[in-house]
């Protein structure tokens, strides 16, 4: 047994070249057609990035946050704020908290700073382990952010925050071939292709989400599902346990975003999406609410560019919720119908702050 190679140095490595051409072709095809493999939310995120970069997302009001904001209709939101302003829904799933600064920087890289950013600041920031809230620390959070935040503002934010560990992770992710990046979805599609059934049919949900987003700029994630109180228990047996972690690092990450928004003359309106009573009971039991209320006070006291819309934690009946964070179709309707009423008492103050911010921005 030995190593023998009878290759002449003058011969072209044709097999290697052929393989390379094929591999590059396949990688290019996967990248161009990644929507075929993605889940029912990814393609919308790709569309949001396109809107961001093309200027379609240029607006006076920008919604930033996680999947609980997907349903927020830009048209209705504009009206609730008194009309006359464009609204862009720039939310994505598994947003966490660190992503606020990235989203803000990405938005302002391609567009002028908005007057208002709508954000959510809910007790789950207290009740979720920090790693699930940070792009740097968790793969799901990171992979979502990769799809939405374009490279240049992404790197600029990393440099701004001095997050060197993340710079390396980001570089590695960008350098990964598409077949590795999207392999989970590709592998799920392989059995269908191998059995000559072609690529798996795009789920109805995916088409509906894309259609709804293209029409309204928003979509309801779980339209016809009704909240099951048992879902909290099931959740706790799955991804992680909801507990009163209350990591000060999380609060600081959110405040870093608020300070940046302040420096850009942006008013941040914290407009939390509804939760079921069951979740409030749960947070009370784990003693997470006092920490959350303390955090709310810090934000109210120390960030003059922030306005919290009451009720800070709106409670919806179970039949209006799909799970303990997302509304269903009926919940969406109830939310949209009640939005104007909820915002009305705050509008004068919001307008006053916008004027104040504008003055500050125009001051030498």
């Amino acid at each position, binding site marked *: 047994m030995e190593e023998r*190679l009878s290759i002449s140095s003058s011969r072209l490595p044709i097999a*290697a070249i052929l393989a390379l051409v094929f591999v590059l072709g396949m990688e290019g095809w996967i990248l161009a057609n990644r929507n075929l493999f993605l889940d029912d939310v990814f393609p919308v995120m790709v569309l949001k990035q396109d809107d961001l970069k093309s200027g379609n997302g240029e607006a006076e009001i920008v919604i930033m946050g996680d999947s609980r904001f997907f349903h927020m209709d830009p048209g209705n939101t504009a009206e609730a704020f008194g009309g006359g302003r464009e609204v862009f829904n720039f939310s994505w799933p598994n947003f966490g908290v660190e992503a606020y600064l990235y989203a803000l920087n990405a938005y302002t890289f391609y567009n002028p700073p908005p007057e208002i950013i709508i954000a959510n600041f809910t007790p789950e920031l207290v009740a979720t382990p920090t790693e699930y809230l940070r792009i740097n620390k968790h793969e799901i959070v990171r992979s979502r952010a990769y799809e939405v935040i374009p490279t240049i503002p992404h790197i600029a934010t990393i440099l701004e925050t001095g997050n060197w560990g993340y710079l390396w992770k980001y570089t590695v992710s960008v350098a990964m071939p598409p077949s590795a990046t999207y392999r989970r979805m590709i592998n799920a599609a392989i059995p269908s292709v191998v059995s000559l059934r072609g690529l798996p049919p795009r789920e109805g949900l995916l088409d509906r989400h894309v259609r709804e987003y293209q029409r309204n700029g928003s979509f309801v994630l779980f339209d016809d599902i009704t909240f099951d109180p048992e879902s909290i228990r099931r959740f706790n047996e799955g991804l992680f346990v909801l507990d009163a972690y209350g990591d000060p690092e999380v609060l600081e990450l959110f405040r870093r975003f608020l300070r940046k928004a302040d420096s850009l003359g942006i008013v941040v309106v914290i407009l939390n999406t509804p939760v079921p009573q069951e979740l409030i009971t749960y947070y009370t039991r784990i003693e997470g609410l006092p920490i959350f209320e303390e955090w709310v006070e810090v934000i109210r006291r120390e960030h003059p560019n922030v306005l919290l819309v009451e009720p800070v934690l709106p409670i919806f009946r179970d039949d209006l919720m799909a799970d303990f964070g997302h509304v269903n179709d009926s919940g969406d309707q109830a939310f949209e119908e009640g939005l104007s009423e909820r915002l009305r008492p705050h509008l004068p103050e919001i307008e006053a702050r916008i004027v104040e911010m504008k003055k500050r921005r125009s001051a030498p």
Partner: protein
Amino acid sequence: MLFDSPEFALFLALVLPTYFLLRHRAQNFFLLLASYFFYGFWDWRFLSLLLVSTVVDFVVARGIAAASGPRQRRSLLIVSVCTNLGILGFFKYFNFFVDSFREMVGIIGFQLETGLLEVVLPVGISFYTFQTMSYTIDVYRGTARPERSLLNFALYVAFFPQLVAGPIERATHLLPQIAAPRKPRWEMFSSGAWLILWGLYKKVFVADNLAKIVDPVYADPASASGFLILVATYAFAFQIYADFSGYTDIARGTAKLMGFDIMLNFKLPYFATDPSDFWKRWHISLSQWLRDYLYIPLGGNRLGEWLTCRNLMITMALGGLWHGAAWNFVLWGIYHGFLLVLFRKWGGWRRFAGSTALETRLLAIFVMFHLSCLGWVFFRIPEINHLIPMATAFVGNFSASATDLAILENALFYLALLIPIQILQYRRGNLLAVLELPVPIRALVFVLLYFSITLGGAFDGRAFIYFQF
């Protein structure tokens, strides 16, 4: 910095172009710095051990060459051996021996309150201490000349492709390559690139995926069926092979890209037809080291049959202990020693296995593969007392459930490309047989390996098994 990590890819992407821009002496200096960086990336504190080993053996070898008499030469050799074995013994075996001693005296009723030390095992220590020791011994024996350049010698000890998991190189093989300018040759480059691709495939696709089958079964054998234990044992045989030989392939491929030829460490070990053949194919650099520096000095086969058997058992038991400070490794070594003795006594087997008839050969391969699998059970079990539930499951609960069959199917999937390629290599007697295939088939193999890695590779930062030895 694992070979299958992005950090190593970046490291190599920076090292290779810089290396080719430099002249020979500067190349060596640069490679030494790169190697120290590579090693220090794990834990920079352990660089001091590498430096001690390097300086002591360099000075001792020069001293041996300049010594006036045999006593002085011998004393210097003892200094080298004691330094290297001292480092190895302290960092790798101190707790093992203290713990074993405590347990032993505990059996006869004494309770010792000796505390164990919080000693971290420096990566690759077993490999580089053996490598430097072999150099001093070779100089002492007169089979190698003492190296004049400390730079060259330091690079011989620390050369990053083979620093942390071998192959355990010999001074007579590697030092001349360091001393002479390397000329880049296309054959070296193409075989190097192939070895890296093949090694990566073996590590991230085969070994790391099989580990997911093996680990849960061996962690809790009591809850597995005998059938599943059998599947997990077969899977481990291929996991450890793919892991270690994959590492070696990447190491050799990387070295080849820079014009170095590192020794072969594996020659299709599961095609061995008897234990002696197995050790000529498995971890060749270690088995040759043990042969040259332990077995032969003990007397080898020159002192009669019984002493030969004794020497084989001692060599293999110590070889087992080299793999780890635990009794299961010793047991594994003794088992292989026993097999070597048994097959040595049973001369008829060699005649049978050496037959040209294909069926006979296949039968011999089948038998030897299963004997090595039995050995892997000793090697893999976390504790010796796990053997009891495994044996019980084998005897009392062998039936395969649907899940067990699905796991077997899964394991076969990960071997679907490895085994045909190995058969091809075996039949052609050429480890680079794939590079001699017709162009379209060769291109297809490259593409399959690439997509197996990107689509199916387990990128979970699982360290190479042999790093811990």
